């Protein structure tokens, strides 16, 4: 059960609350230094949204 929850967390998409840019951990953001498969939590804190420049703090899990 714990394993399933962690897997879900690692595939959760995150959306920038300022510009709506979406981070998909499956795809990553290779052109911005984030390899495919990187969970949002593992992205460095000094990374910023490629679309508007805000930091990780302005992202929220994508609601389906």
């Amino acid at each position, binding site marked *: 059960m714990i394993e399933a929850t962690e897997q879900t967390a690692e595939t959760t998409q995150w959306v920038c609350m300022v*510009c709506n840019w979406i981070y998909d951990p499956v795809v990553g953001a290779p052109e911005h230094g984030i390899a495919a498969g990187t969970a949002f939590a593992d992205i460095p804190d000094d990374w*910023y*949204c490629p*679309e*508007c*420049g*805000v930091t990780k703090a302005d992202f929220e899990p994508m609601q389906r």
Partner: protein
Amino acid sequence: MSVSSAAAPNMASDICGIAAQVGVVDSVVAEVRELVKKRLTPKVLDVDLKAEYPEDLLRDIGKAGGYRGAASPEYGGNDLGLRHVVEVIEEVSKECLSTGFMIWCQTACARYIDQSDNTWVKECYLPRIVSGELLAGTGLSNTMKSADTIEDYRLSARRAEGGYVINGVLPWVSNLGPDHVFVTGCPVRGADGELQGLAFVLVECGQPGFRLVDCARFIGLDGARTLACHFKECFIPDAMVLAQPSESAAYLARIKPGMILAQMGMGLGLIDGCALLMEQSNRTHGHVNQYLDDQVGEVVAALEEARTATYDLCDAVEADAGGGARYGLDVLKLRLAGGELSVRAAHAAMLHQGAKGYLVRNAAQRRLREAYFVAIVTPATKHLRREIARMGSEAQAMGSEAQALPACAA
């Protein structure tokens, strides 16, 4: 080869404007008109399509005196005030809204400083800003929206010895560069987290703890050097504070009317440019354009009315010791009309031009994209409508209360 030089001749390059402007044209405005004709018209597509920042032109408009309406004479101003600022923005926006917007940024920053009580900043920075030597932006969009409870504050400040330490990110601030300055305002909270007010500060983009991030791409005005501003434990000394928390409410009330009203220069210039496109199309297609809803005569009439109202309100705001706070509702209503008329005029220009207006190098589609900027830049149409409704309700409530009060003895 530049995009602009490869472009088909722009039929709308006669930037003297279509709507009658009464009175003698100011010599500075005339010089700015020449600069636009010689330097901006050939580059307008590069600014629009290649996000080229027209830095040299911005500096030369400053040298010509284009920003001097924003400052008091003792700090390099020309004593012509807000109306002159609007006239210059308008003249440039007839051709290119991106450049007109940057002039608004430059003069808005100058005006914020001029309206402050910080003599040192006025002496040190204002003459350089109004001469175009120092380029400047305004990072008050989030401050204004947060103050009007539309969104949360994106910056926070805490008191430190001799100044404030600021943290946070402002996503989109225009007319910036490593050696530029801009004004922003952020909430100051005490140790208990209680809001003490806003601190309005002048920020040097090259200072420690501050970083510019260039990432956003826009469908219009992409040459306006719009960057994200990162503050990380960024110390701003008291010498750079334009208004301390205790005086921030009065300061904001003082700068707001002029800041919003000056944006009318963008709308007026753009509408004029759109009317010109319509008129040019009518020379060959008037027989079919006559079936469109908005005709050039109607747009020009609305433009002339808006221009007169803008200039009159500029004079009133300038003459008011409170920075025009008493005209707040009038300013918001006029600004709302300016955005709506901009979109209407650009839509009409696009329909007049027809299929040729859909070409990448045709001005009509650019003007349409630019028109939406007038309608969405802070304060956006929805923001303006909300504030107008709120102020209207408050005025109504005060009227009801006054009626309910017993009559005072004369």
